[in-house]
């Protein structure tokens, strides 16, 4: 799976060089951006609400029984912001949006649409990759910010509703606020920005290197999603380490 890393770095570099053309392609960036939002907003809501909820459900009763009720808010708050929202949303987006990018670019490759662009002297990186990369790099951090808030709400509601935890919502958020700092949220949002780049590069690259017919497209999509997820998890570890050094 890693034989393509060089090509992906090159694609990322070329996209970076094309960044000044973003304004020209703004219409496509908007289209992609809204498509991403449209495709994922509801799922982001549901997913992050339940992740926050289950975090509270798993840890709450134990903490309350050991007399640590005041830590539930902080625990849910920190884990949601720094870890769960960025990683889970990135994985969701890899499955929901990255796969669609690969499928679309892949079918354009297979059906010679990309060749047609090239003969018209239209650079597929400017035309296809750049708008998608910019859109996902903008959209995922926003979605993650939103997911963090919804996750907190999920944790708060579950903590209140479950009789073995039973922490009033105001108390939950007071505890949360005493632990979670703005830095922690920024930390998670920054991670999600990096994950967005990973999903974007992997998905566009897989699309561009698609060969064969419909089966080739299917193969590419699967590869794009699996590779994205593996890279997200690996980079999550690396980024967490790096951010720890920065924050201390």
């Amino acid at each position, binding site marked *: 799976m890693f034989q393509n890393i060089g090509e992906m770095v090159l694609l990322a570099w070329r996209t970076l060089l094309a960044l000044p053309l973003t304004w*020209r392609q703004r219409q496509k960036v908007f289209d992609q951006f809204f498509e991403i939002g449209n495709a994922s907003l509801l799922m982001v809501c549901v997913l992050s609400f339940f992740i926050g909820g289950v975090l509270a459900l798993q840890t709450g009763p134990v903490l309350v029984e050991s007399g640590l009720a005041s830590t539930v808010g902080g625990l849910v708050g920190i884990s949601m912001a720094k870890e769960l929202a960025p990683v889970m949303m990135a994985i969701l987006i890899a499955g929901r949006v990255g796969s669609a990018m690969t499928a679309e670019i892949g079918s354009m490759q297979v059906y010679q*649409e990309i*060749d047609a662009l090239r003969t*018209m002297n239209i650079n597929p990186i400017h035309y296809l990759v750049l708008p998608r990369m910019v859109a996902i790099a903008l959209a995922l951090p926003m979605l993650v910010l939103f997911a963090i808030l919804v996750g907190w709400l999920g944790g708060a509601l579950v903590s209140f509703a479950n009789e073995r935890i039973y922490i009033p919502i105001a108390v939950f958020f007071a505890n949360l606020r005493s632990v979670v700092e703005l830095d922690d949220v920024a930390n998670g949002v920054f991670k999600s920005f990096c994950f967005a780049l990973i999903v974007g590069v992997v998905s566009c690259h897989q699309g561009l290197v698609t060969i064969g017919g419909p089966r080739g497209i299917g193969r590419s999509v699967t590869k794009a999603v699996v590779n994205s997820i593996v890279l997200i998890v690996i980079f999550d570890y690396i980024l967490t380490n790096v951010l720890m050094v920065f924050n201390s």
Partner: protein
Amino acid sequence: MSAGANHQGGVAVEVRGLRKSFGRHEVLKGIDFLVEPGEVFVIMGPSGSGKSVLLKHIVGLERPDEGEILISGEPIHAPEVMARYRMALVFQSGALLNSLTVGENVGLYLSEHRLKPPAEISRIVSEKLEVVGLKGTERKMPNELSGGMKKRVAIARALVIEPHLILYDEPTSELDPLSAVVIGEEILKLKERIHVTSLVVSHDRDLAFGVADRIAVIDDGRILAVGTPDEVRQRPEPIIRKFLTADFNPNHKTRL
């Protein structure tokens, strides 16, 4: 890059010793020919003989294993060449962008390169669509079109570029005889109007002999014959004769 309504005609295309293999399958086995500026050069040959692969080399979509391709004397992979000369390839499949409407497809070159204001673009688009007999289809999506209509939209898209070199891959393969004649006439008109160099790949004998200044017959990755239509017709080689004169045989004995 200029929109070039007044460019000085076509370019010369020279192919020298072109060889290309895909894996162990050698598709082009040494191709040489020269197309003069403003000429209509038709390439005929059986299915699978490497015609589409040859065209892709000429527009720079494939890189040769050996040999070179010169556009007005300059190798095509020199970056200036792509910027200086406009080329258009009408793909065998049409290769329209499925996510865009017909109108957007036809105007894509102008809109992406910001060559004309939008109102002007839509005027040119409807003009070119009319040329190929598809007036008023701007708002349709490619998947609502028949194969032959897609091909004609692809031709309109190529006309918009006002190219120095236009390559047609089987322009009439999915057209009814009347539309085929219209396309053939359009190839000739274009040649007269802007002196574009045209390379036409076709099995259509009527089209080939109708429009060609010269014809090349290609088989199994090699050029068998090049010449004016009359010269090619006179060639004695049995393969060429068979290819040019094959007709329905009431005894079902025609062999490939």
